């Protein structure tokens, strides 16, 4: 047991180090963006005087390391600072966007994850039969199309032609849970389609691989029923790789949905980050990047821990 705790502790520490490294990279990356905030805020109407006025107001002349430390120490104390461009506190800008993205991601995940794992299991169970082949073809088709294309296709069929769901996903502050679900039906469906295939195929492959292992063959020879083999022997041993692909897709649902957000005009994190980049709103870019990094690193950490717990062999590295 202490071994297990130490192992997980090590993994957590590694995660934190990764996040620190990411924060440095993010800062360096934003420094490399062409143009500066003052000129971008003013756009085509930037006169030298106006640019100078804004630069002075925003302390853009300070050295990079000073600005990095000011920001990083703020993040550690939970203060993300103010948006340079709009002057509003970043937490108030970020919170509703993150909430919107997490809501959409959770709805998509709640549909996609069980669906993908069930389909993967069934495909493995009925390998090379019609079900397996058609599920494989359908999901392959869905992941082969770019997500914006699927989005437009769904809009065309379900919004423009049939009129069942709205074409753009606007959620008014007073909307109830049902209205919210209805508003995000199409983006959630899009995301389900683009993530299910990946997870399903990985689940199938992992289980098929385990099924080829000698101990499964042994158990088959002993006459264990096929279902029992899959659920008792194959699935627990396949949890590691399945957990990995599931979190990869969960992370995608949070950090990779920008195209879907644009197609459905959904005010989420992706749109926020693109805006921030376009305006060179450095603290906001950094805050978004850190949120994305925490999501990504955190979920991967979770997958590793699940693998460690599910597979005793990983606890005793040789």
């Amino acid at each position: 047991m202490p071994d297990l705790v130490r192992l997980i502790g090590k993994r957590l520490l590694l995660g934190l180090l990764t996040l620190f490294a990411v924060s440095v990279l993010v800062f360096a990356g934003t420094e490399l963006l062409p143009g500066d905030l003052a000129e971008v805020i003013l756009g085509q109407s930037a006169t030298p005087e106006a640019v100078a006025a804004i630069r002075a107001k925003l302390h853009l002349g300070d050295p990079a390391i000073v600005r990095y430390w000011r920001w990083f120490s703020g993040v550690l104390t939970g203060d993300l600072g103010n948006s340079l461009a709009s002057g509003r506190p970043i937490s108030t800008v970020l919170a509703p966007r993150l909430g919107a993205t997490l809501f959409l991601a959770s709805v998509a995940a709640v549909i996609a994850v069980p669906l993908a794992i069930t389909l993967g299991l069934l495909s493995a169970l009925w390998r090379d039969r019609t079900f397996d082949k058609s599920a494989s073809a359908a999901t392959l088709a869905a992941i082969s199309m770019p997500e914006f294309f699927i989005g437009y296709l769904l809009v065309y069929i379900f919004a423009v032609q049939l009129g069942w769901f709205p074409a753009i996903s606007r959620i008014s502050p007073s909307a109830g849970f049902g209205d919210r679900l209805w508003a995000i039906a199409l983006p959630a469906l899009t995301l389900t389609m683009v993530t299910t295939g990946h997870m399903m195929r990985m689940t199938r492959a992992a289980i098929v691989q385990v099924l080829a292992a000698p101990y499964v063959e042994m158990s088959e020879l002993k006459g264990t029923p096929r279902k029992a083999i899959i659920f008792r022997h194959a699935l627990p041993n396949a949890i590691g790789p399945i957990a990995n692909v599931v979190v990869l897709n969960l992370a995608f649902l949070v950090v990779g949905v920008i195209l879907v957000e644009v197609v459905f005009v959904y005010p989420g994190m992706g749109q926020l980050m693109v805006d921030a980049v376009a305006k060179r709103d450095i603290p906001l870019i950094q805050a978004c990047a850190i949120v994305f990094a925490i999501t990504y690193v955190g979920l991967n950490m979770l997958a590793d821990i699940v693998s460690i717990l599910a597979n005793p062999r990983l606890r005793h590295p040789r």
Partner: protein
Amino acid sequence: MSRIDSYDHLLRQGGLDRRSLGKLAAMLGAGAAIGAMLPGLARAQETPKKGGDLMIGITGGATTDTLSPLPSTASIHTCSSFMWGNCLVEYGTDGSAVPELAESWEPSADAKTWKFNIRKGVTFHDGKELDAEDVVWSLNLHRGENSESGASGYMKQVVDIKADGKHAVIIELDSGNADLPYLLTDYHMIMMPKDGDVTSGNGTGGYKITEFDPGVRVFGERNENYWKEGRAHAATVELVAISDPAARTAALQTGQINIMERVDPKTVELMGRVPGIVIHQAAGGGHYPLLMRCDTAPFDNVDLRLALKHAANREDIVDKVLRGLGKIGNDHPVPSGDPFFASSLEQRTYDPDKAKFHLKKAGYGGEALPLSTSDAAFAGAVDTAVLFQQHASAAGINIEIVREPSDGYWNDVWMKKPFCLSYWGGRPTADLMLSVAYKSDAAWNDTFWRRPDFDKILIEARAELDTAKRQEMYTQLQTMIRDDGGALIPMFNDFVDASTEQVKNFELSPQYGLCGMRAPERVWLDA
């Protein structure tokens, strides 16, 4: 084609040009009467209906949006300013200066000192009554070195602004400017209460902003005390930020919005065929130039510039890039609908032989000329560059296309690279357009073309009150830019919006789309 053209025609036939009519009226202090009469021509003969929720799908939303009108650049920003606020002067649908918060105005004989009479009994949303002090304070926000206003450039000519009693304001200029009322139609110059918060949205406009989510939506409820008669019909107006043209189209088709700004030229024909959808196409002063820096080799050679100007097939570009939704240009920035458009000036045409002649004079040896482009300049800028490359190669010119990143285009390419594509929105007057982009010391002189004789005539023309003389001077200025300047202007783009057929009174404006960004207070819903 568009309604604007037909009114132009009508007014020209009458032998009286609008601008002089408007000015005559203003000088007589009777601007209100004439101003009210002219848009009357354009208004549909239906009785507007009150109420309804108007939703507009609009571009330009960003999380950095604010309600302050000072740094305004994008559509959603400009349009929301006109929801809650008014200017002193309104840019009329026919290009006239219509009295808004200024009831009338009188220039001095040299057009250097102007008196604006402020409308009485107008209140802000918070109940305070508008007076001359508020006007002086609001206008001063656009002056001085530290102003963050996009209008600060134009306002440099203002020497002094002072109140004259409670309901008049005197504006003094450094030299005469007959077009001052037009300057005050600028969307940055919204009147706000003195010493107030510029981001509060507290104005005199038809809608009170009750919800504002930057980059997402602006929502306003009708101001029941709105002073302007027969305007602001809908009960609520919502501007919905939709940057993706396909999403705007789908939202309009499914009735989630009533109006969409900026139809993609590629789909406009298809959209026009959808039952229940109306396309609104306004010809105006917006144009897409290819900018050559006159201070940088090899573009500092006028013959090379002329060769390039002769090497562009304008009709082809308008057909293919704008899909016919625009007009060909004549290498100067004044649109044909402008009263001071140089109609006597010969249209430049595609002529590879003439181009070759000038190339030879310029001593061009076939070296590659890099042309910087990106769709950040305008939708279709890359296509334009490719087309132009083909046209020019027929004249033996070797154009090398440089695709620049969209990000930072305005910082790193525009006014930096020697040859690049760009765009200009319409300006209310010829003087303003020439002053912001072609005067030697203009902040946005993006061709770096400097001609003291041009500047001299420009300043004289500004102060000239005789329309015939002014026309002559402006023709001279346009000729100078056309034959010597650094801008190759192949096309003027139309503003194309679409709405459901329930939207009535969509008054086109030559200046911008969405009824000159004033759609919220002009249209009404026939539900």
